[in-house]
């Protein structure tokens, strides 16, 4: 397992501070549920970076990581739906809730490839919302131009998620060492784009 380098630790710390700043200063002005979902999303980013900083990459071996990592895209996409497409908020809340419970159940109880089959569509829907919604809102002029950065951050988050998901499934897209080398930078960059975008 790759040990943490100084730059890895630095990127994790940057992520912690950026996410912490956003939780304190960057998510006021939304309704209760949107604020809660954004707090969970940035909270997961913060805790993930902090735990990686303290425990190293070995923590990624834990099954709980998949479950916790699901919370970030699901809660961020839910926040976007609640804030910008309120008509669909109940439907999406149901999808996110059931999707999360399904992922928890299949991760610990289902055999073989079933967990991945459940994980992939839930992540895909959440990822597409985070990627497309800010871009569309921004290009339509219904949100500031900088809001598009959230979409770019979503794409990076999706990339990181894909790299880790394929690595865990035993068919890595890139060598494990390369994935762990770029992951801290990817996490910091994703968080920075979210902070700049909101």
């Amino acid at each position, binding site marked *: 397992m790759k040990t943490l380098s100084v730059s890895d630790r630095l990127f994790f710390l940057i992520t912690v501070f950026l996410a*912490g700043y956003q*939780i*304190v*200063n960057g*998510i*006021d002005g939304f309704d209760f549920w949107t*604020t809660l979902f954004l*707090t969970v999303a*940035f*909270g997961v980013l*913060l*805790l993930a970076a*902090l*735990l990686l900083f*303290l*425990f190293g990459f070995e923590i990624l071996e834990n099954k709980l990581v998949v479950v916790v990592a699901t919370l970030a895209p699901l809660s961020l996409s839910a926040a976007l739906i609640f804030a910008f497409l309120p008509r669909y908020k109940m439907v999406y809340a149901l999808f996110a809730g059931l999707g999360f419970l399904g992922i928890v159940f299949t991760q610990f109880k289902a055999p073989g490839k079933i967990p991945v089959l459940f994980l992939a569509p839930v992540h895909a829907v959440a990822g597409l919302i985070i990627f497309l919604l800010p871009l569309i809102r921004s290009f339509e002029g219904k949100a500031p131009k900088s809001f598009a950065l959230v979409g770019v951050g979503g794409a990076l988050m999706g990339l990181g998620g894909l790299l880790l998901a394929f690595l865990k499934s035993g068919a890595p897209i890139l060598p494990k060492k390369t994935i762990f080398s770029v992951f801290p930078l990817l996490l910091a960059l994703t968080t920075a784009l979210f902070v700049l975008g909101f």
Partner: protein
Amino acid sequence: MKSVLVKKIKHKLKLYWPLIKSLQTGLLLITGFTGYISARCPVLNIAQVLGLLGSLFLTISGSTILNMVYDRDIDARMERTRKRPLPAGKVKPAEALVAGLVVSVIGLLWAFSLSIMFGLVVFAGLFIDVVIYTIWLKRKTAWSIIWGGISGGMPILAGRVLGLGHIDSIGILLALAILLWIPTHILTFSIRYQDDYRRAGVPTFPSTYGIAGTQRIIAMSSIGAALAIGMGIYALGLSWGYLRLLSVLTVGLVGLSLISMYRPSDRVNFGLFKYASLFMLGSMMMVVFGAMP
């Protein structure tokens, strides 16, 4: 002649620096400053801030030197501490005793000159640390760490007292948070260096209640510290943003504590210790930034 004197002073400072445990003293100074800022007093009262930091630095350093003098026999028997200046024979005990007493007295006089109440709290911290914790209880019972914790909570209470003029419930909550955090530090070390402590004959939680029991106490103590600092920050009236951040950090702390309680291991236990230290540092930063005008 002058250069010889400068060299001599430099040499002495180099010997005495490890005697004041600079990291621990620095952390306690941060808590003292946090307590002061939490009172929302004018931050730019430079003279008072300097007085606070200066008097605390001297009394904490003085009490640490006095502890080192008293515990030099224990330190000599422990692998981790046997190279410290006193057990290694680099500093004479009588000289260190005089230095510790002089530094402590100057610090106390400075503290009393700022405010009688502040001076009393600082004196209480020093007295509890040196007399009750180190001299009276440390070699008798593992529970002595409670008193070590109480003395560790005094700087933050003192800082708040200096800013406010009196003792209040928020100050006590902040001190309680430090008190509950300190066992995570001491007990983690007593697990890591349990052979050292056994050799030195110092009663510890691992030797009295076993490793698993100690890990549970560390976890419960961490949760208690989080609750106390949370209540303190809520009572201070910090913005919702800080409460949100504190909630997120608390979720992490409680999660790690539960893992440490139900699936204890050295790695998780040490990780919890490091997380709890960062949690406390983060909480102090939140109080400082949140209370600044």
